[in-house]
């Protein structure tokens, strides 16, 4: 047979693929979905890099069930409709065995139903909306495939109110929340946490994404006599809130959801953001050997600016989520969705993560791996997030 140059190349390619499929075992494909572009991307990219870091370590140690892990990463741009497309693509075409990700509560609520229907477990590692893990909970659904490795808004709202009302004795509170799903669901959780203490906010104000002027919101809070501002929003607008307070010459403490730790809040607010407090599952301080190794590994691999992880919480939860999933796959001895779910709900071995050591994190009815005891209060100090209370540094 006469071989043309093109045919020769094709033949060679064919031989190479044949050889490689024989040598390597079939990889286990795991979906990673999050916003890798746009305003939420610092969280999405930190989460992805945390997952990649864990995948690299696991693969170097021989993979799981003798097979390497392959991550199938997809950008859902923090858009609900794109999240739905990505979910369908990961399930139908990419045939992933599980999915890690979801930063935005709205996207999570829209997209996770497809995984639930396909009986493919999801480890939700950043989004915090309280309802996320209850969308498909029993008894309406026999089995819930949605798990979480982040502090739900319920936990956070409780901690925020406790910090302001119980610890600092500031009972006149104002709530400032953005107009997204995230901000408004968070506002409801704050209201409930306040109501549990018999309190009601003296002012509840709203702002939009990309708003630059917060005068009206802050003046209303001030006129109502607020002693503290509780926030539910994302970094850039929260920075405008802090800057707006400085402009009005009105300084009250800011306590809010974990997003007050975002680099774009700390940088844009500068000195005005100092002292802001927020619940954190992970603070970039190497106070245990495991955490130290994680931070060093992240810095070596991704060289973040000034050595500061853009969103340490997202990176740590992303890292832990893959270890939890791998432990479940190992225990199940299979990549079958229902078996992984059953193993997650009954993990025999402790899983050592950077947020905490997970000891039976999930049961059939509880799909929250992180509770209030694991979550600590962080504070912006010197342009970084540090522990607000020294006794939490354990």
């Amino acid at each position, binding site marked *: 047979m006469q071989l043309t140059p093109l045919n020769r190349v094709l033949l060679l390619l064919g031989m190479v693929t044949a050889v490689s499929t024989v040598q390597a075992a079939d990889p286990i494909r795991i979906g990673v979905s999050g916003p890798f*572009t*746009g*305003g939420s*991307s*610092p969280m999405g990219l930190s989460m992805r890099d945390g997952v990649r870091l864990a995948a690299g370590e696991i693969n170097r140690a021989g993979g799981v069930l003798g097979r390497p892990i392959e991550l199938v990463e997809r950008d859902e741009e923090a858009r609900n409709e794109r999240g739905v497309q990505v979910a369908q693509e990961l399930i139908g075409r990419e045939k992933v065995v599980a999915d890690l990700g979801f930063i935005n509560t709205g996207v999570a609520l829209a997209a996770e139903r497809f995984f639930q229907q396909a009986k493919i477990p999801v480890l939700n590692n950043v989004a915090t909306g309280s309802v996320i893990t209850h969308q498909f909970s029993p008894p309406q659904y026999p089995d819930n495939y949605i798990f979480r490795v982040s502090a739900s808004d319920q936990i956070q709202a409780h901690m925020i109110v406790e910090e302001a009302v119980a610890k600092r004795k500031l009972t006149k509170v104002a709530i400032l929340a953005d*107009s997204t799903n995230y901000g408004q669901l968070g506002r409801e959780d704050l209201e409930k946490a306040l109501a549990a203490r018999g309190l009601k906010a003296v002012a509840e*104000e*709203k*702002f*939009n*994404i*990309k*708003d*630059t*002027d917060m*005068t*009206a*919101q802050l*003046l*209303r809070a001030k*006129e109502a006599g607020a002693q503290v501002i509780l926030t539910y929003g994302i*970094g*850039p607008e929260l*920075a*405008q809130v802090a800057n707006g307070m*400085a*402009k*009005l*010459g009105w300084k009250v403490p800011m306590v809010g959801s974990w997003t007050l730790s975002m*680099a*774009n809040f700390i*940088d*844009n607010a*500068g000195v005005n953001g100092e002292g802001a407090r927020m619940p954190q599952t992970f603070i970039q301080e190497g106070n245990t050997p495991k955490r130290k190794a994680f931070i060093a590994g992240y810095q070596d691999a991704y060289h973040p600016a000034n050595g500061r992880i*853009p969103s340490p919480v997202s990176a740590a939860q992303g890292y832990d989520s893959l270890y939890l999933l791998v432990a479940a796959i190992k225990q199940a001895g299979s990549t079958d969705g229902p078996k992984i779910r059953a193993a997650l709900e009954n993990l025999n071995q402790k899983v050592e993560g950077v947020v905490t050591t997970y000891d039976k994190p999930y049961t059939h009815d509880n799909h929250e791996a992180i509770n209030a005891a694991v979550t600590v209060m962080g504070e912006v100090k010197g342009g970084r997030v540090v522990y607000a209370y020294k006794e939490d540094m354990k």
Partner: protein
Amino acid sequence: MNILTQLVLSGMALGMIYAVIAFGYQSTFATSGTLNFGQGEALMLGAMTGLSLTGEIMGGPYLNYWLMVPVVLVIGSLQGLVVEFLAVRPALRIHSEFGWIMSTIALGIIFRNVAENVWGRDDVPFPSPLPTTPVHILGANILPMELGVMVGALLLMGLMELFNRRTLYGKAVVATSSDRGAAGLMGIDTRAVIAFSYALSSLTAAFAGVLIAPITLTGASMGSVLGLKAFAVAIIGGLTSGMGAVVGGLILGIAETTTGFYFSTGYKDVPGLILLLLILAWKPNGLFGRAAVQKF
């Protein structure tokens, strides 16, 4: 502190931000009847190049704020020429009524994506050239940079009026805006005038960008909402009047802050937009706009 004074002052500062962006829409509409819907992106490019020169994001600082401004103006006007050449000239040549709408939007998206890849996707702080401690006026607080924006907007308006009325080039622009065909017959190179107006438009946008960046958020997506609000201002004030942009900006800005305080912060954008609808119904050319007489 006097609440109303504070709301009006903050609203004025916000309105002047909208006004300086709105000027950019006006200059191209005057000459060619087209608008650059990538105005928000021109603003963003001005702010981001300015930040690259005065900030630390690209290994700087290379220049101080005041020396950076002329460089940004030059880059801004070049960007305007690119927009005119790629998006507007082909549409005008084939007498396409609406081709320029899609093509300027498309170019805007391209500029934004390029900026995301060059400068990243995050909002970053822009070092303020003026002190950041507020000053007290009439019992209210205002940032020195907000006063700077007001002065800048009025200066820009004055310069535009002076240019149109006193200089030969300005007269060519005015002639082209009144009747492009007749101006061409009088020996005015109308194509060059249109190209020039795009350069001027992006120049004002770039100037607006470095002017407002120290008080707003600076990032690849900063232009999207501001560009849209400024467009509403240009419509309220009238697309042919520099005065209109300033008054329109003040109306929208003060409407936002006062509604936010006295009514509800959830509805603060509504009165401005209702006003927009009313003005479109009763004075389609805006409060200060001249009606163009169309003869066929």
